[in-house]
């Protein structure tokens, strides 16, 4: 689709907004519908959109496989690390109340970190699935 000029321009214009929308959904998850899952999928969708327009190799250059794999791992580690942090600070696992002097702030901090972890992992997993499936098609049939 590299030759479709309109698509390329529209894509380039849309992708930044998609990413910003993802961030909005992410940060608004604290107060309303939204959160890491949805945001992660939107981030992944932006990259997938890019791959659809500019081709898989270009997308893989932009977001390399190793990065995707690391994102999958990193997100889980952020999530788990938040839990461990709660333990280190004297609470139970995933105890957000102890993350800050003020328990309410602690909840905010905890949820923010956890949701960040979710975002990273979900977008990583989505991209991985897309890469793996899309990459297979390049193989010679049979």
């Amino acid at each position, binding site marked *: 689709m590299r030759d479709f000029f309109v698509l390329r321009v529209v894509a380039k214009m849309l992708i930044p907004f998609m990413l910003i929308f993802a961030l909005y959904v992410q940060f608004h998850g604290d107060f309303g519908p939204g959160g890491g899952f949805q945001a992660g999928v939107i981030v992944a969708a932006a990259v997938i959109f890019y791959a659809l327009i500019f081709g898989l190799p270009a997308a893989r250059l932009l977001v390399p496989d190793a990065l995707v794999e690391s994102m999958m791992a990193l997100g889980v580690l952020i999530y788990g690390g938040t*839990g*461990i942090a709660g333990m280190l600070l004297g609470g139970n696992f995933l105890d957000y109340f102890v993350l800050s002097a003020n328990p309410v702030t602690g909840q905010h901090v905890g949820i923010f970190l956890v949701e960040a972890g979710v975002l990273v992992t979900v977008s990583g997993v989505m991209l991985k699935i897309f890469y793996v499936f899309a990459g297979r098609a390049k193989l010679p049939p049979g």
Partner: protein
Amino acid sequence: MSAEHLPVLLVVVPLLAAPLIVLFRSGRAGWLLAVLASMVSLACAIGLFVQVRGGTVISYAIGNWAPPWGIEYRVDVLNAFVLILVSGVATIVSVYARTSVISEVPSDRHYLFYAMFLLCLSGLLGMTVTDDVFNIFVFLEISSLSGYVLIALGRERRALHAAFQYLILGTIGATFYIIGVGFLYLVTGTLNIVDMAGRIQAVADHRPVLAALAFMTVGLSLKAALFPLHAWLPSAYSTAPGAVAAFMAGTATKVSLYVFIRLLFGVFGARLVLQDLPLLEALSLLSIAAMLVASLVAVMEKDLKRLLAYSSVAQIGYITLGVSLANQDGLTAAVVHLFNHGIAKAALFMLVGGAALRLGGCRLEVLAGMGQRMPLSAFCIVIAGLSLIGVPGTAGFITKWHLVLAAAEAGQWLTIVAIGASSLLAAAYVWRFVEAAYFTAPRHHGVQEVSVGMLAPAVIMTVACVYFGLDTSFTLGAAREAAELLLGAVK
């Protein structure tokens, strides 16, 4: 960190070690982390077991949200015992896995193997330790999904189909389970097992409770490969890489059985399970059918891994038979057999996996002359096989003793006959290996014993089969206490 966090560390350590392995992207580091994480889990499990002996119950509120609102991890002697089994088998198998993985899995996927292994482990441990029925589902799926991947890593293309088949049936099983959870949540408004047990008595005659019981029984039976829902097990175990087969055979079905036992006695309770419904009678019939039919199939089987897989189905029948007898000795037999069969099967699959690598297959005619070529492996297979038969001096005997005693207490003499017949069939299928290994001329020349890295863990596991047949203070002590606990809950 102090001892109070043990219940969660047990699960979190392997859960977080898995992504670390993915970050390192190295097979060797992955292996080291896998061994380490399994050992930490084992240490946690032992620590917990020591604390809960004698009736203490440890409750851990995740995120400090008090149960029944938050997720609660709850450890009593029953699940501490299962935790030791799972993490112990994982520790030994993870050591073994190094050589097995190098020979069976493409080298660019080694680190993924260990990550999946640890995810599977943490899923199984989570299922065991949690007291929240929905959380059980989540961990069940974590262990299942990683399990499907592990099986699909098998060398032959048959493994793919086996994994797919397992995925379909496993997902149906898990979905049945959450349908059951859904009904229970609708009528009780809680997901916490202890809380639910208290509330369910008031609504026990509501139809959704019955439906929940039915759905959960079928779902967990599928995961536990209870006859006749065992179709996925033989092909999955026989095509998976050696280490995976050993790990799953030792743990996966056992944990599902644990959940089943826990729900049966801990949630549904006396009125439904023991009085109103013929559930135990049905379970007893199915168990006996499993013990006889699956053993018979095992006797006919030509492939040693499939033979052992069918033997697993039969031995699961022993466990459920103990449950269905529902008296002190029966439940003791069931709980102790979770452990005794787990270690025996893990040992056997490790040994057979090694033999299959050396000899290029595990059909009985391929194993011909193994007694001469791989004397220690063959001998250990025989010893662990004796535990399957239930020869005194092995762990299997302890189970059989209690099963026969329980059946005698219940006055079910026909059941005793079935147990005897099943032992005979077990002797028959174990002896098929003996005759292949010792009475036929070797087909291969220059075949040598497997490396120490594979042999040592398998031998340790085999020795455990004998050790726990002689010194039963740990296994039997725990199982008795657990049986008292379960029976106390339905009184």
